Structures are given as structure tokens and as C-alpha cells.
């Protein structure tokens, strides 16, 4: 599959279609592209289009959604070559003329038609130590975290991720290097590295290092460009590169230049 195409100038999504305008939708299915035609409607989203096709034209069309308001992260797919939430994308903003091309999310195995298997995405989330680590003995007291401390700000910048996989689909390094943990998992790890209550720092820094880890990111910024939550995994990954480098140098120094106590 092709890399995401350059950003098309966004069109005004409030411009309503002319009466009687029809939409031509090419959908990649298990046996190649299939074309559907349906009426354009005011304020129509991509998810509305797929749902209308499934209800009115072909009940075998498979796709996934749940909340339809940008909360659950389950509806993402490639829309005209770019990964997007279909529930929050207006047809008027992205259609090329009256044409749409819909494909399953890039970089993930297809289950059927437009539904992908998110398992590799979540496996990597776990591999990057994406779960809070309370430690053997939990902290004795509440951690007092100042809202404007640098750590808290770093967490705030990345905490709103809803695991939609859009960034993962946008990242070329994931397609070149299937082991690469990817922007979402690394972004998550960075929020936990900055969580002062977390006890799993050293192990997490190891988990996000190496050929599958943060050092493989080329700072292409595709993830940051496409994240519908306007998060910036690229900067989180840059933070991980700094922190892992600092820790590696410290360990190297301790091993070679300091006498062990």
C-alpha cells in the first residue's frame, strides 16, 4: 500500500453539496475494489457513507465503529490514502470532487474488508510497558503533582490517546520495520516515564530502546500530522531518545569509570 499522500488543502466542510449530487465510493474489499454510488447529504461523515452502503446496498460489507463521536477509536480507516477517524471526517472536507476511496487501516492485518486486526498494535503497547507499574510496595502516601511541573505537562501533552491506530497507520517506519513499536506505544511509554508515581522506569527505558524502539524513529512527523487528537508522538519519542541516551551514558559510566561500592 502507498504511503499517506501529501496533505490536500482542507476544504470547508460546511459547504453543502448541490441538490441531487451523487458520491462515488471505491471500497477495497477482500477481492479488490468495489464501487458504490449513493446520494450526497448535508453534514455527511465517512462513517455515514459506509453505514448507508452496508444498510442499503451490501449487508456483507465489514467495518468497525462504536461511539461515532471520536471517543472510542475503533472507526479509523484510510480515506483517500490518509488514515482518519471516519466518524469525525466530513465527506465535504475530503472528497475529491464526488469521489472517495476507502481502504482498511495501513500497517495492520485485514480481518475483512475495512476491519483490521488491532492485535499487533496492542501487543506493542504492552511490549513498550504501556501499563502503569505501581511497584512491589505502593507509595506510602498520595503523590503531590504540581499541575505546572515539567513532568505533569509532558504527561498532559500525550495522555489523551484513544488507541485509534491512525498514527500507527501513518508511520512509514512501521511499514519498513514491522517490529517497530510505533508512535502510539512510544507516546504512551513517555507519559508513564513522566508519571512520578510509576516504579517501572528503568525497565521501560530498556523496553523502548533498540531496533524496535524509539531510536528507529526518523522524525518523519507523519504520526503528529495525522493524530486526530492533535497529540505529538514525534516529540514524545524525542523525549524517549533523550532519556534513554542519558540513562545509557549513566550506566556506561557506572560500569566503566566508577568503582562499584
Amino acid at each position, binding site marked *: 500500500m502507498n504511503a499517506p499522500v501529501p496533505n490536500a488543502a482542507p476544504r470547508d466542510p460546511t459547504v453543502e453539496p448541490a441538490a441531487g449530487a451523487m458520491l462515488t465510493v471505491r471500497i477495497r474489499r477482500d477481492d479488490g475494489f468495489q464501487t458504490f454510488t449513493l446520494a450526497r447529504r448535508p453534514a455527511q461523515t465517512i462513517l455515514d457513507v459506509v453505514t448507508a452502503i452496508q444498510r442499503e446496498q451490501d449487508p456483507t460489507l465489514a467495518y468497525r465503529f462504536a461511539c461515532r463521536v471520536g471517543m472510542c477509536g475503533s472507526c479509523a480507516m484510510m480515506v483517500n490514502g490518509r488514515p482518519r477517524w471516519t466518524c469525525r471526517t466530513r465527506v465535504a472536507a475530503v472528497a475529491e470532487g464526488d469521489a472517495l476511496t476507502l481502504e482498511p487501516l495501513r500497517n495492520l492485518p485485514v480481518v475483512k474488508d475495512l476491519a483490521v486486526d488491532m492485535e499487533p498494535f496492542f501487543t506493542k503497547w504492552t511490549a513498550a510497558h504501556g501499563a502503569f507499574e505501581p511497584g512491589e510496595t505502593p507509595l506510602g502516601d498520595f503523590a503531590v503533582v504540581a499541575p505546572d511541573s515539567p513532568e505533569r505537562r509532558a504527561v498532559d501533552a500525550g495522555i489523551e490517546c484513544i488507541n485509534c491506530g491512525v498514527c500507527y497507520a501513518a508511520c512509514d517506519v512501521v511499514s519498513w520495520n514491522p517490529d517497530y513499536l510505533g508512535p502510539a506505544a512510544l507516546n504512551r511509554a513517555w507519559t508513564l516515564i513522566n508519571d512520578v508515581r510509576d516504579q517501572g522506569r528503568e525497565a521501560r527505558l530498556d523496553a523502548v530502546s533498540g531496533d524496535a524502539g524509539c*531510536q528507529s524513529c526518523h522524525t518523519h512527523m507523519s504520526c503528529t500530522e495525522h493524530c486526530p487528537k492533535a497529540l505529538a508522538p514525534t516529540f514524545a519519542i524525542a523525549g524517549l531518545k533523550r532519556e*534513554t541516551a542519558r540513562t*545509557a551514558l549513566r550506566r556506561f559510566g557506572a560500569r566503566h569509570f566508577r568503582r562499584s561500592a
Partner: protein
Amino acid sequence: MSPLLYVAQRGTAVILAVAVAVHLGTILYAVRGGLTAGEILGRTQGNLAFLLFYGTFVVAAAIHAPIGLRSILREWTPWRGRSLDGAMLGVAALLVVLGLRAALAVYVA
């Protein structure tokens, strides 16, 4: 790549950025009035500062380039593992040998 290779690649990139600028600047400055090969060799011969500068440049490039080449090969070919790492050490050695040989040749010429 490991965090230490990362540090090595970014650290040598800083050296290279300075070295490339000095290298180009010197070329532009030196040939401004037109110089023969003989005149250039006359200035580099026995010049220890020249040798140290290009020695550092060569070693930095020999560390920097194979680390980057390794990333590219891992992304664009199925080559992985010890044979790849060994080959990259070979590239590093080749760059050191060829580069230092060239710098030394100009130094002693």
C-alpha cells in the same frame, strides 16, 4: 539501534557538521586566488594540525555512516543479525583505513 549507538551517531554528527563546514570553508578560502596542487601540498605537508583535523573527520565519519547504513539496510532489505553488524564493522574499518591513508598521504607527500 541501541542507545549507545544512537549517542555515537548523534555525537559524531555534531563533529561532522563542524568538520564539513571547516573543510568547505578552507577549500573556498584556499582556492580563491587559484592554487596549484603543488602549493596545496606545500601547506599540508608536515602540518600536524591538518593531520589531526582530517584524522578526527575520518574517524567521526567512520563511526557515523555505518550506524546509519545499518538502519537503512534493516529497513530496505531483510538483512539482520550478527552478519549485518559484522559487515558494518567492516565498513567502519574500510572508511578508517581509506580515510586515514588519504590524510597521511597528503601529510607526508
